[in-house]
């Protein structure tokens, strides 16, 4: 209870509590004369108490909600915030559909870029508002075998986050942490170019609604807005994530962090496995804090490994069960016949579903097969 923390005398505190004022919010709407009468103290003393109380409430004025526990929000406020959340769209309409519109800026997921129909969908469906709260961000793991398109997805997200607000995007920048050396600039350029072309086409399509929406972006601009870090060891990885705090406070327009892949450097011999678990959970915690503080999405690309059961093998996310469980949202990419599929393995807010997608020269797009279907589990 915040009353305990107020810098007032013990007798004043005792009087407040016995009169029923147990939280700061209860002091927000009372006048000093009323308070003086209630507490049987002088008016100047009451005014002092109110001043101290409003002072400690000062930092929360932006969110306006009164809470008993600092940082908490009522469920109603949370629902309101969710509805006004911005989404980073994927390029595949089916993927976006199972992801409730795209990657939330609170949750990290993997997503690609969508086709023209998806851009239209996401704009019409969601309010073009830039308000989103500073609630905690849950990050998401995306795992898959080599060649399934994890890096492609990562690049697509880093490009998609930059879609301007006028097109239903976040207009933000991206941090891309490359641990494997898979990032190819020419591919990012290709994807950026295709993204701008899609936007121009959309612009032409809806010309009557958006007069001033000229596409002035160039692929080079998109590449410039991706902060690219290449790291070569796990110590560098930890150091970088620790450094991101400072970096993000200087670059408040970053809206997504992509780590490709988060597992590579941890799969070497760690003499002490308990140390590895500690380091990993520390890193996860840091990332979650960054996501929360700076209101951004965190996308972690994960390798897969095999788990040997009695009869056969099973694919599992690398780095063990405890690592997988630190992330509340997980998407698994896999091959189904000749198609690439994304499956929501776990999520607190989305239903388990799978959707097909494809990797094209323009980036991630809807699967081209005509019999694709979103399967709900």
């Amino acid at each position, binding site marked *: 209870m915040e009353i305990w923390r107020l810098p007032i005398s013990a007798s004043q505190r005792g009087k407040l509590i016995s009169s029923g004022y147990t939280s700061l919010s209860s002091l927000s709407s009372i006048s000093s004369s009323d308070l003086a009468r209630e507490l049987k103290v002088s008016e100047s003393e009451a005014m002092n108490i109110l001043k101290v109380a409003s002072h400690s409430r000062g930092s929360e004025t932006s969110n306006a909600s009164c809470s008993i526990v600092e940082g908490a929000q009522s469920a109603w406020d949370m629902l309101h915030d969710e509805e006004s959340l911005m989404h980073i769209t994927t390029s595949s309409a089916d993927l976006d559909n199972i992801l409730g519109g795209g990657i939330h800026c609170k949750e990290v997921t993997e997503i690609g870029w969508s086709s023209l129909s998806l851009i239209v969908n996401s704009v019409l469906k969601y309010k073009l508002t830039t308000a989103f709260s500073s609630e905690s961000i849950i990050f998401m793991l995306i795992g898959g*075998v*080599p*060649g399934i398109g994890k*890096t*492609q997805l990562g690049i697509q997200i880093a490009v998609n986050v930059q879609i301007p607000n006028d097109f239903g995007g976040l207009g933000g920048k991206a*941090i891309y942490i490359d641990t*494997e*050396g*898979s*990032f*190819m*600039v*020419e*591919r*990012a350029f290709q994807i950026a170019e295709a993204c701008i072309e899609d936007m121009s086409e959309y612009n032409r399509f809806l010309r009557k609604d958006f007069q001033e929406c000229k596409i002035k972006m160039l692929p*080079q601009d998109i*590449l*410039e807005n*991706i*902060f*690219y*870090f*290449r790291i*070569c*060891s796990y110590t560098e990885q930890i*150091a*970088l994530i620790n*450094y991101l705090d400072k*970096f993000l406070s200087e670059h408040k327009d970053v809206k997504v962090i992509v780590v490709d892949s988060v597992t*590579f*450097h941890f*799969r*070497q*011999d760690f003499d002490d496995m308990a140390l590895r678990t500690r380091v990993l959970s520390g890193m996860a915690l840091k990332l979650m804090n960054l996501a929360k503080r700076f209101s951004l999405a965190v996308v972690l690309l994960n*390798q*897969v*490994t*095999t788990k*040997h059961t009695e009869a*056969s*093998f099973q*694919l599992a996310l*690398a780095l063990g069960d405890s690592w997988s469980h630190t992330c509340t949202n997980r998407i698994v990419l896999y*091959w189904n016949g*000749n198609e690439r599929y994304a499956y929501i393995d776990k999520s607190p807010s989305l239903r388990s579903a799978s959707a097909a997608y494809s990797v094209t*020269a323009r980036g991630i797009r809807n699967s081209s097969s005509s019999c694709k279907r979103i399967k709900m589990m």
Partner: protein
Amino acid sequence: MTPQSLLQLTSQKCTTGCPILDRLLYGGIPCDSITEIVAESGSGKTQICLQLSLHAQLPVSHGGLAASSLYLHTEFPFPFRRLHQLCLSFRSSNAHHFPVNDNPCDRIFVQSVHTADHLLEIMSKTDPFIENSKNQVPVRLIVIDSIAALFRSDFDNTPVELKRRSSLFFKISSKLKALAKRFNLAVLVTNQVVDLVGPNEGINGLRIGNLVCLHTSGRRVCPALGLAWANCVNSRLFLSRNEEVIREENEKSNGQSCDFVKKKMRKLYVVFAPHLPESSCEFEITREGLFGVER
């Protein structure tokens, strides 16, 4: 820590010596990246490695890296004679780039490797070696031919040993990538294949990359060293060879059996690569080297 500017980050490539292959690979073998070539014996892995080591010496304006190469070989003996043969044809077609008495073979440093630990040892010495080479012709290409030979015999098939083997993969790959980044090297690694037998191939039947299944010499195969190693390389190329019947010859009038004219059909496939689409092309191996064929 400052982020790298993507606009200044150019991915340099090393030409393979054949414009058709270069087109398939969008320029050649990329630097700051590990490219793996998977094939069964006799498919042309070593040919590509030797050819690349020579063409890396071409100036950058002609697709090379203006560099010498470090060739780590694990299978014996090293094909010196074939290298010499390739060198002659390389010199004759690129005479204007090299002075008269120059021998491109001088710029290929060959080192034999016996075990995985030996490889790690060599790599720790490679750092100063490459650093020193900057004074003459810098080393910009490392070839490991083949990585599979280092791991095929030393490890039992128990989970503990396999785990130890896996962490060695990541250690080696991590060191190679660090070297590649530090000196902007291209790394080329060759790998062998294992046969897939029967309908239940277990983990080896897992699809990795663009091809549902790899076929060579009429058999279904998969790359050696498993899923763990697949996670360690950036790009994977597959060379297949098959005997194809072109036509029948000497057809007898009574329809009895006749001679078939067979031809070796060789194809290069992109299994996975972050910058390449799914593609393939035919190639042939001649005295002058390995070249793509346009049909």
